[in-house]
Protein backbone atom coordinates (compact mmCIF):
# COMPACT_ATOMS: atom_id res chain seq x y z
CA UNK A 1 0.00 0.00 0.00
CA UNK A 2 1.22 3.46 -0.84
CA UNK A 3 2.23 5.35 2.32
CA UNK A 4 2.60 9.10 2.64
CA UNK A 5 4.48 10.66 5.51
CA UNK A 6 4.19 14.35 6.20
CA UNK A 7 5.99 16.39 8.80
CA UNK A 8 5.78 18.26 10.95
CA UNK A 9 2.30 17.58 12.27
CA UNK A 10 2.13 20.96 13.98
CA UNK A 11 4.03 24.08 13.09
CA UNK A 12 3.97 27.37 14.93
CA UNK A 13 6.00 30.10 13.36
CA UNK A 14 6.41 33.82 13.65
CA UNK A 15 5.43 36.19 10.91
CA UNK A 16 8.28 36.88 8.54
CA UNK A 17 10.01 33.57 9.09
CA UNK A 18 10.64 30.80 6.56
CA UNK A 19 9.86 27.15 6.97
CA UNK A 20 9.47 23.93 4.99
CA UNK A 21 6.92 21.14 5.20
CA UNK A 22 8.05 17.73 3.99
CA UNK A 23 6.12 14.98 2.26
CA UNK A 24 7.61 11.54 1.60
CA UNK A 25 5.82 8.76 -0.22
CA UNK A 26 6.68 5.10 -0.40
CA UNK A 27 6.26 4.03 -4.02
CA UNK A 28 6.14 5.48 -7.49
CA UNK A 29 3.25 7.84 -7.96
CA UNK A 30 1.58 9.53 -10.87
CA UNK A 31 1.29 13.01 -9.46
CA UNK A 32 1.49 14.87 -6.18
CA UNK A 33 -0.86 17.48 -4.77
CA UNK A 34 -0.72 20.08 -2.06
CA UNK A 35 -3.95 21.23 -0.44
CA UNK A 36 -4.88 23.84 2.07
CA UNK A 37 -7.81 23.53 4.44
CA UNK A 38 -9.27 26.30 6.55
CA UNK A 39 -11.57 25.28 9.41
CA UNK A 40 -14.99 24.24 8.13
CA UNK A 41 -13.99 24.74 4.52
CA UNK A 42 -13.25 22.42 1.61
CA UNK A 43 -9.78 21.25 0.71
CA UNK A 44 -8.40 23.90 -1.59
CA UNK A 45 -5.97 22.74 -4.26
CA UNK A 46 -2.70 24.67 -4.13
CA UNK A 47 -0.35 22.82 -6.45
CA UNK A 48 -0.23 19.78 -8.69
CA UNK A 49 3.25 18.45 -9.42
CA UNK A 50 3.66 16.05 -12.28
CA UNK A 51 7.31 15.37 -12.95
CA UNK A 52 10.72 15.17 -11.38
CA UNK A 53 12.18 18.56 -10.65
CA UNK A 54 8.82 20.32 -10.93
CA UNK A 55 8.66 23.57 -9.01
CA UNK A 56 5.59 25.74 -8.64
CA UNK A 57 5.17 29.00 -6.77
CA UNK A 58 2.17 31.00 -5.72
CA UNK A 59 2.75 34.00 -3.53
CA UNK A 60 4.69 32.98 -0.42
CA UNK A 61 4.33 29.26 -1.11
CA UNK A 62 6.62 27.19 -3.28
CA UNK A 63 6.28 23.45 -3.90
CA UNK A 64 8.85 21.13 -5.40
CA UNK A 65 9.02 17.48 -6.33
CA UNK A 66 11.90 15.01 -6.39
CA UNK A 67 10.52 11.76 -7.73
CA UNK A 68 13.79 9.89 -7.28
CA UNK A 69 13.81 10.65 -3.57
CA UNK A 70 9.99 10.40 -3.46
CA UNK A 71 9.97 13.71 -1.66
CA UNK A 72 8.01 16.90 -2.04
CA UNK A 73 8.47 20.08 -0.08
CA UNK A 74 6.22 23.05 0.55
CA UNK A 75 8.33 26.06 1.39
CA UNK A 76 6.84 29.05 3.14
CA UNK A 77 8.63 32.35 2.70
CA UNK A 78 8.14 35.28 5.07
CA UNK A 79 5.02 33.83 6.65
CA UNK A 80 1.98 35.97 7.26
CA UNK A 81 -1.02 35.30 9.50
CA UNK A 82 -3.26 34.53 6.52
CA UNK A 83 -1.26 31.40 5.84
CA UNK A 84 -2.51 29.80 9.06
CA UNK A 85 -4.34 26.64 7.98
CA UNK A 86 -3.86 22.89 7.69
CA UNK A 87 -1.81 21.75 4.71
CA UNK A 88 -2.03 18.29 3.21
CA UNK A 89 0.03 16.54 0.59
CA UNK A 90 -1.52 13.73 -1.42
CA UNK A 91 -0.43 11.39 -4.17
CA UNK A 92 -2.18 9.38 -6.77
CA UNK A 93 -0.56 6.04 -7.31
CA UNK A 94 -0.07 4.27 -10.58
CA UNK A 95 -3.21 2.93 -12.21
CA UNK A 96 -2.94 -0.46 -10.56
CA UNK A 97 -3.10 1.07 -7.08
CA UNK A 98 -6.62 2.36 -7.49
CA UNK A 99 -8.22 5.72 -8.08
CA UNK A 100 -8.00 7.13 -4.59
CA UNK A 101 -5.76 9.83 -3.25
CA UNK A 102 -3.27 8.87 -0.55
CA UNK A 103 -2.88 11.67 1.95
CA UNK A 104 -0.30 12.67 4.47
CA UNK A 105 -1.28 13.41 8.07
CA UNK A 106 -1.54 17.11 7.46
CA UNK A 107 0.45 19.99 8.95
CA UNK A 108 -1.43 22.42 11.14
CA UNK A 109 0.30 25.75 10.62
CA UNK A 110 -0.16 28.67 12.97
CA UNK A 111 1.52 31.94 12.11
CA UNK A 112 1.99 34.16 15.13
CA UNK A 113 2.03 37.93 14.68
Amino acid at each position, binding site marked *: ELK*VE*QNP*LFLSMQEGKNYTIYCNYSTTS*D*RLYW*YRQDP*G*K*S*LESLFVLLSNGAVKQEGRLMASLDTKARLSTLHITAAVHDLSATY*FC*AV*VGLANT*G*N*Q*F*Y*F*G*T*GTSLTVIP
Partner: protein
Amino acid sequence: EAGVTQFPSHSVIEKGQTVTLRCDPISGHDNLYWYRRVMGKEIKFLLHFVKESKQDESGMPNNRFLAERTGGTYSTLKVQPAELEDSGVYFCASSHTLQGRYEQYFGPGTRLTVT
Protein backbone atom coordinates in the same frame (compact mmCIF):
# COMPACT_ATOMS: atom_id res chain seq x y z
CA GLU B 1 -20.93 26.29 -10.37
CA ALA B 2 -21.73 24.83 -6.98
CA GLY B 3 -19.03 22.76 -5.36
CA VAL B 4 -19.32 19.51 -3.47
CA THR B 5 -21.65 19.93 -0.53
CA GLN B 6 -22.00 17.78 2.56
CA PHE B 7 -24.65 17.62 5.22
CA PRO B 8 -24.59 17.94 8.14
CA SER B 9 -21.46 19.92 8.88
CA HIS B 10 -21.35 18.53 12.40
CA SER B 11 -23.02 15.60 14.09
CA VAL B 12 -22.76 14.50 17.69
CA ILE B 13 -24.30 11.14 18.54
CA GLU B 14 -24.06 8.57 21.27
CA LYS B 15 -22.39 5.22 20.88
CA GLY B 16 -24.82 2.74 19.44
CA GLN B 17 -26.89 5.28 17.55
CA THR B 18 -27.19 5.59 13.80
CA VAL B 19 -26.01 8.51 11.69
CA THR B 20 -26.40 9.20 8.00
CA LEU B 21 -24.10 11.56 6.18
CA ARG B 22 -24.98 13.02 2.81
CA CYS B 23 -22.83 14.19 -0.07
CA ASP B 24 -23.98 16.09 -3.14
CA PRO B 25 -21.29 16.00 -5.83
CA ILE B 26 -20.74 18.59 -8.50
CA SER B 27 -23.42 18.25 -11.13
CA GLY B 28 -22.36 15.91 -13.92
CA HIS B 29 -19.61 14.20 -11.96
CA ASP B 30 -19.92 10.45 -12.26
CA ASN B 31 -17.15 9.67 -9.79
CA LEU B 32 -17.82 10.09 -6.11
CA TYR B 33 -15.39 9.27 -3.31
CA TRP B 34 -15.67 9.05 0.45
CA TYR B 35 -12.68 9.65 2.71
CA ARG B 36 -12.25 9.91 6.47
CA ARG B 37 -9.79 11.64 8.72
CA VAL B 38 -9.50 10.36 12.26
CA MET B 39 -8.03 12.88 14.70
CA GLY B 40 -4.37 13.54 14.00
CA LYS B 41 -4.15 10.92 11.29
CA GLU B 42 -4.10 11.04 7.53
CA ILE B 43 -7.18 11.35 5.36
CA LYS B 44 -7.97 7.79 4.28
CA PHE B 45 -9.98 6.51 1.37
CA LEU B 46 -13.20 4.67 2.11
CA LEU B 47 -14.84 3.97 -1.23
CA HIS B 48 -15.41 5.07 -4.80
CA PHE B 49 -18.64 5.16 -6.80
CA VAL B 50 -18.92 5.38 -10.54
CA LYS B 51 -22.46 6.56 -11.06
CA GLU B 52 -24.50 4.27 -8.80
CA SER B 53 -22.02 1.39 -8.76
CA LYS B 54 -19.37 0.78 -6.15
CA GLN B 55 -16.07 0.71 -8.04
CA ASP B 56 -13.85 0.20 -5.02
CA GLU B 57 -14.88 -0.20 -1.40
CA SER B 58 -11.56 -1.52 -0.14
CA GLY B 59 -11.25 1.24 2.45
CA MET B 60 -14.52 0.63 4.25
CA PRO B 61 -13.56 -0.26 7.82
CA ASN B 62 -16.30 -2.78 8.60
CA ASN B 63 -19.90 -3.72 7.92
CA ARG B 64 -21.25 -1.04 10.20
CA PHE B 65 -20.66 1.36 7.32
CA LEU B 66 -23.07 1.39 4.39
CA ALA B 67 -22.70 3.69 1.42
CA GLU B 68 -25.31 4.19 -1.26
CA ARG B 69 -25.67 6.29 -4.36
CA THR B 70 -29.11 5.62 -5.71
CA GLY B 71 -29.69 7.16 -9.11
CA GLY B 72 -26.06 8.11 -9.43
CA THR B 73 -26.47 11.57 -7.95
CA TYR B 74 -26.07 12.22 -4.24
CA SER B 75 -24.60 9.65 -1.89
CA THR B 76 -25.23 8.70 1.71
CA LEU B 77 -22.93 7.06 4.20
CA LYS B 78 -24.67 5.40 7.11
CA VAL B 79 -22.92 4.29 10.26
CA GLN B 80 -24.94 1.82 12.30
CA PRO B 81 -24.33 1.32 15.15
CA ALA B 82 -21.75 4.04 15.71
CA GLU B 83 -18.70 3.34 17.85
CA LEU B 84 -16.30 5.76 19.54
CA GLU B 85 -13.56 5.08 16.98
CA ASP B 86 -15.84 6.27 14.18
CA SER B 87 -15.32 9.84 15.29
CA GLY B 88 -13.58 11.95 12.71
CA VAL B 89 -14.14 14.12 9.68
CA TYR B 90 -15.77 12.48 6.68
CA PHE B 91 -14.93 14.03 3.33
CA CYS B 92 -16.63 13.52 0.04
CA ALA B 93 -15.04 14.24 -3.33
CA SER B 94 -16.22 14.05 -6.91
CA SER B 95 -14.64 14.06 -10.33
CA HIS B 96 -15.79 14.12 -13.91
CA THR B 97 -15.37 11.02 -16.06
CA LEU B 98 -13.01 12.81 -18.44
CA GLN B 99 -10.73 13.92 -15.63
CA GLY B 100 -10.98 10.61 -13.88
CA ARG B 101 -9.07 10.15 -10.68
CA TYR B 102 -6.77 13.12 -11.13
CA GLU B 103 -9.15 16.02 -10.57
CA GLN B 104 -11.05 15.34 -7.39
CA TYR B 105 -13.00 18.20 -5.85
CA PHE B 106 -13.52 17.96 -2.14
CA GLY B 107 -16.37 18.99 0.07
CA PRO B 108 -15.95 20.69 3.46
CA GLY B 109 -16.45 17.48 5.37
CA THR B 110 -18.81 16.32 8.10
CA ARG B 111 -17.36 16.26 11.57
CA LEU B 112 -18.75 13.24 13.42
CA THR B 113 -18.34 12.93 17.16
CA VAL B 114 -19.44 9.73 18.85
CA THR B 115 -19.71 10.00 22.63
